[in-house]
């Protein structure tokens, strides 16, 4: 092998090495542990598919999975259209659009832990901004215990997460809009297309890659939701706002059931992988076409 062929591999060796130690190896280990009964301290015991069988009958796991699906729907149904609408709006060069853009974009700069903390104060039942607002305008009935009512707590958490997720989608679409050919839009205008027709038949098809990316990223983010749940409710009250990652944490690190926790992680990994693969296939297909 001549030198120029070797160079890229030499550059890759370092990162690959780290990637194996910190990503590949733990994944393999998690798979192994998921077939074990292990308290994290004493010897592991092989139990076959026992952990996975138990998952099927575990109500709280079912609940957590359902909550993840709610997160997913909330992320896709809300953050994509709103993000797109905001991007279209911000793309108009109105006065001060840069300031508005930064304001909307601001939550992106915060970590989920900070966002969770802020929103637990906003949604605090007695003195929180939301309930104080409703009470002050005489709409007492809308002042809800956002974080302690098991029926609404998951939606409160999703709302908090969307505060960061929507601007994220907006950024992706803004980048996408840069690639929409101006000539095409002008040509459509000359041909007498209305604004709605221009959006629907010219801009949106051109944004297809951005929509796919934004959707996939949102789905993956919704599946790995953890930080906000952990900070705001710890999955409570009584697991009603639990998500898979959170339930895994409780089982593995609180209940000392490493094997069971690992099996939850494996299921979560499988679902996420499904979405990532379908995304990659989409990208590959597109590259072949071009």
């Amino acid at each position, binding site marked *: 092998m001549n030198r120029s062929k070797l160079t890229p591999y030499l550059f890759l060796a370092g990162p690959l090495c780290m990637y194996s130690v910190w990503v590949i190896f733990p994944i393999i280990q998690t798979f192994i542990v998921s077939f074990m009964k292990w*308290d*994290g*301290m*004493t010897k592991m015991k092989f139990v076959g598919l026992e952990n996975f069988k138990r998952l099927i009958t575990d*109500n709280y796991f079912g609940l957590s999975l359902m909550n993840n699906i709610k997160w997913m729907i909330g992320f896709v149904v809300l953050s994509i259209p709103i993000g797109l609408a905001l991007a279209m709006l911000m793309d108009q060069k109105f006065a001060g659009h840069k300031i508005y853009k930064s304001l909307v974009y601001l939550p992106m700069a915060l970590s989920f832990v900070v966002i969770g903390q802020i929103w637990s104060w906003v949604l*605090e*039942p*007695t003195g929180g901004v939301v309930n104080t607002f409703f009470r002050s305008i005489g709409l007492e009935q809308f002042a809800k*215990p*956002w*974080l*302690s*009512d*098991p029926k609404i707590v998951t939606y409160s958490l999703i709302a908090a997460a969307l505060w960061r997720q929507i601007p994220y989608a907006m950024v992706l679409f803004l980048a996408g809009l840069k690639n929409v050919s101006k000539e095409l839009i002008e040509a459509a205008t000359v041909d007498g297309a209305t604004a709605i027709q221009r959006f629907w038949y010219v801009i949106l098809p051109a944004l297809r890659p951005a929509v796919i990316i934004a959707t996939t990223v949102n789905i993956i983010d919704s599946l790995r939701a953890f930080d906000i749940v952990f900070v705001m*409710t*710890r999955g*409570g*009250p*009584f*697991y009603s706002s639990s998500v898979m990652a959170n339930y895994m944490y*409780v089982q593995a*690190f*609180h*209940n*000392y*059931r490493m094997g069971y926790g690992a099996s939850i992680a494996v299921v979560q990994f499988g679902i996420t992988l499904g979405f990532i693969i379908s995304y990659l296939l989409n990208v590959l297909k597109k590259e072949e076409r071009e």
Partner: protein
Amino acid sequence: MRRYFLILLALLMSLTTLAKEKIIVNSYMSDPAPRKAFAELVDIFMQKYPEYEVIINTFAHEDFKTLLRTWLAAPKGTADVVTWFAGERMRYFAQMGLIASIEEVFAGQKWEDYFPASFKSTCSYNDKIYFVPQSWYWWGVYYRKSVFEKLGIKEPKSWDEFLNVCEILKKNGITPIAIGTKFPWTAAGWFDILNLRINGLEYHIKLTAGEVPYNDPKLMKVFEYWKQLIDKGYFLANHAAYEWQEGATFLFRGQAAMYYMGQFIKDVAPAEVKDDLDFFRFPIIDSAVGLYEETPIDGFMIPANAPNKKGAIVFLKFIASKEAQEKFAKDLGRLAANVQVTPPDEHANKGLAMIVASSGVAQFYDRDTNPEMAEVGMNAFIEFMQNPTRITSILNRLEQERKRIYSK
């Protein structure tokens, strides 16, 4: 010449600091008051034993509980001493060989020279001592004296009187009972005391040991009494949104009047409220049942993988001493485990008197129960508090869990 001398001096000084043996203490005392008291205690130790340097790593209480296991299970230990709870939660680690026996602390002496004989069993596993108790406290119904006075309320002695007090408070627009159940152990306090008052200590110990089914009709009675308070709306609304300290602020602001809580509620009370806080013994429900109370014991243990076990023993010997115990108890108004230390103040005297007059004591639900059972149990209590009518299905589910967990 002078410069060389200075350099030499600096070198020597750094050598002596290097020569100091390190003792690393991982602590969950994260509330400001206990944190300060413990830091001062460690300073006294370092003055007394200049050959040691003690490093305290403080962790938030709830995080500590999950982290401890990773420290204990690590092949190479990092902490020499860790704070922990006596009873089942300590034994859990002792039976796996993850903590070291500390018999050496009492070398040439007896346990009874330091601590009450009645504490020995909760601090031991297989007749060996694993735990040095530092302080203990009682649980009681804490209340605002000023609120009671203003409404002409006297401390209730019986359940009916207690319900009556709640009713008066509620009529006057004050939440009768504060609680914060974001972390569910506060609800476990209610479960414990109701079970102790209704079914007694022996039954309670059997239950926490996993020997009694959770759908036992006797246990149902506990929830029937609890339900009376829930149905009448005596508990703080939206309690699942608050941590225990946040629940306590309602008490401190005078918006709530009572809180069934451990003495450590005084740690977080603002100065102007502290003296307005008093407690009474949880009211009697069945006069045929003895008066049992909850008295958790806090203290220290040594991980089996501690790098400096020798230093850890010296440190724990100091912690067990009258001087150290007196200082800590005095700072926080708790009761020292050391028998030679008298209660630090009137309030602690009252607490001690209540415990001495009891027929027996339990630790606490999540200290007496297997950790996994405690987790599902405590969450079930919150679910019950929010949906009291679901109690039968909740208890049946707990029973399934108990069977699974204890069949291991």
